[in-house]
């Protein structure tokens, strides 16, 4: 179980999350993919902390989780507001801010 395995897993998770953000239409699913990306980053941080033998990576992981939580709060609030107005959670349909 070398750190490279964990980092490889984090990379795979990150890519899956990124593809999900780019491909999926439903806003909830995009949020979940963003969470996936954040967790992938967390995993990478912790793996490197284990490798260096310091706690810095784990502390940063805490910060990342706090940021993720705050972001979810705000994002879900925006999604709720859009859903109430438009009866649809598709991001493709919120395209009024264009030329």
């Amino acid at each position, binding site marked *: 179980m070398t750190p490279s395995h964990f980092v490889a897993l984090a990379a795979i998770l990150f890519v899956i999350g990124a593809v999900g*953000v*780019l491909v999926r239409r439903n806003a909830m699913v995009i949020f979940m993919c963003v969470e996936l990306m954040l967790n992938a980053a967390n995993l990478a941080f912790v793996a490197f902390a284990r490798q260096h033998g310091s706690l810095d990576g784990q502390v940063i992981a805490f910060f990342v989780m706090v940021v993720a939580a705050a972001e979810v709060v705000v994002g879900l609030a925006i999604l709720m507001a859009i859903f109430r107005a438009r009866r649809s959670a598709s991001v*493709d349909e*919120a*395209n009024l*801010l*264009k*030329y």
Partner: protein
Amino acid sequence: MTGSLAAAAVAAPAAARAVAHAVAAPATTTLPAVGVQRSAWLLLVFPLAGAAILLLGGRRTNPFGHIVGVAMPAASFVYGAIAFFAMLSYPASQRSRDVHMFTWIAVGRFHVDAGLLLDQLSISFVLLITGVGSLIHLFAVGYMSHDPERRRFFGYMNLFVASMLLLVLANNFLLLYAGWEGVGLASYLLIGFWQFKPAAAVAAKKAFIANRVGDAGLSVAIMLMFATFGTVSFTGIFSRPGAAGNGVLTAIGLLLLLGACGKSAQVPLQSWLLDAMEGPTPVSALIHAATMVTAGVYLIVRSAPIFDLSQNARLAVTIVGAVTLLFGAIIGSAKDDIKKALAGSTMSQIGYMTLAAGLGPAGYVFAIAHLIAHGFFKAGLFLGAGSVKHEMNDEVDMRRLGGLRTIMPITFVTFGIGYLAIIGVPPFSGFFTKDPIIQAAFDKGGTSGAILGTAALIGAGITGFYMTRVMLMTFFGERRWDEKAHPHEVPPVMTSPMVVLAIGSAGAGAFLILANRYVNFLGPLVGFPPPARGLFNWISGATLALVLVGVAIAWAMYGRRPVPAVAPAASFPRTAAPRALYGDAFNESVLMRPGQWLTRLSVYFDNRGVDGLVNSLAAGVGGTSGRLRRTQTGFVRSYALSMFVGAVLLVGAFFLVGI
């Protein structure tokens, strides 16, 4: 001084064919003024105060406006006479006096004082301007008596007198330039006095613009003088004129000549003088006969030390003088308007003065003597023409005059005396003042002297012709008047100035030239001409003969045959001369049209070039932004994709750089 003069007198007859030499002026020292001359600023203050009272006081001053208008130049004349007699009490080498008024400009190296220079040259001009000027002002009281704007007229005339006095009294070139511009302004205001006449307004504009060309030359000359000598005052420049190189001196001389041409209506800036006759006749008499047009000659004689060191500039001056004297004579022979004929005569006589001034010390004294005599007889002639015009309901076309000598006897006699003076019949003025100029021209020697002298001789003959023509058509012959004209002699307020001027016309020349009076007066300042070879020699005989030939031709053409009321058949001399020898056409084709092309080209370049550059920049920015905004699709996933691609590129860049 007398020793070298005697030596010249001995040398001249020793070689029969040798050219007698003029003696250059000794360096004059300028002393500060003492006694009564210290108040010389009064000369300026009187007419300036008159102008201020009349122009700023407005219609309230109408009742006494003309009295103020005449009194001010007269007061200046009284003071001028007092200063003149004070000057006569000084020895000849101490007559140049400086009156310091105040410091005008003191900026770094550039220091100009407002001061007056009272010397033989300026006092001669002061007496001429104020004396003849006061007489003309008195005439104008009668001439303009029916004009409701008479007060404004006298305001402008006083302004002119003040500016002209400033011009001749200034002790540095910048103050002279201030007076120069002032007389140009007064001339514009007075030519266009009857603004409601379009011809007068156009003539005023033409005079001012032609003057401006000359003024440009004068201002560049002053700038050159400051750059070369570091000062613009007369004493500063004339005490060491040799400090400048020959090329610079020639350039300064030629530019001064250009300024003189503009103000004195010499070729090539002569076209405005005949149009200036649109102004009231007192204006023509004062400004365009006796004083303003002589300012150019004053400038050249005043700058004598500069011209004495530059042969090329002097040659240019003589050529301009000779060409103009013939030009003016030819134009004056063809004009039917009596005032325009006299204007052509003025142009020609100033050509004589310019020719004399260009001959150097041999001619300066005679140029000024002729200037003074010309002031008398030309002013008298113009006032006579004004009287005729006043009585004939403003008729100036000589083809509709005639036979006036029995009806206006005083006018006829004074005009006749002026006529005899101008054509140079002894013992009247012209004979004494014009002949020395012709002699000095021949004495110059070589081909140039022969050509100049011959031109002056021919000019004298033509003078006889055109002046006799004016006399015959106006005062003799049958009456070709309009039915409504009832002329009679003009009132005494108009005849008395003419009488005084006639006395001056008759006697001024003899008074100045005989016994070398004026030569000894002005000579210490500008240089002595070679001693006269006696009053009657082959040159004066030839001049008189040519004049009589001119008179005879005019008598044959106009005295014996009835004057035609319609123009004769056209031939080149008959068409060229009335068109002022195509002066206006020349100005138009050489100066005006290229000027208009230049302005149109500039406007085109400004609209298409400069504006086009700025507009195309703006259009470019607008077009680019128009294309760029299409990236804002509103499609969120494409934004996400671009963010992702950017992040990948950034990481790749980091790997490349090696972080």
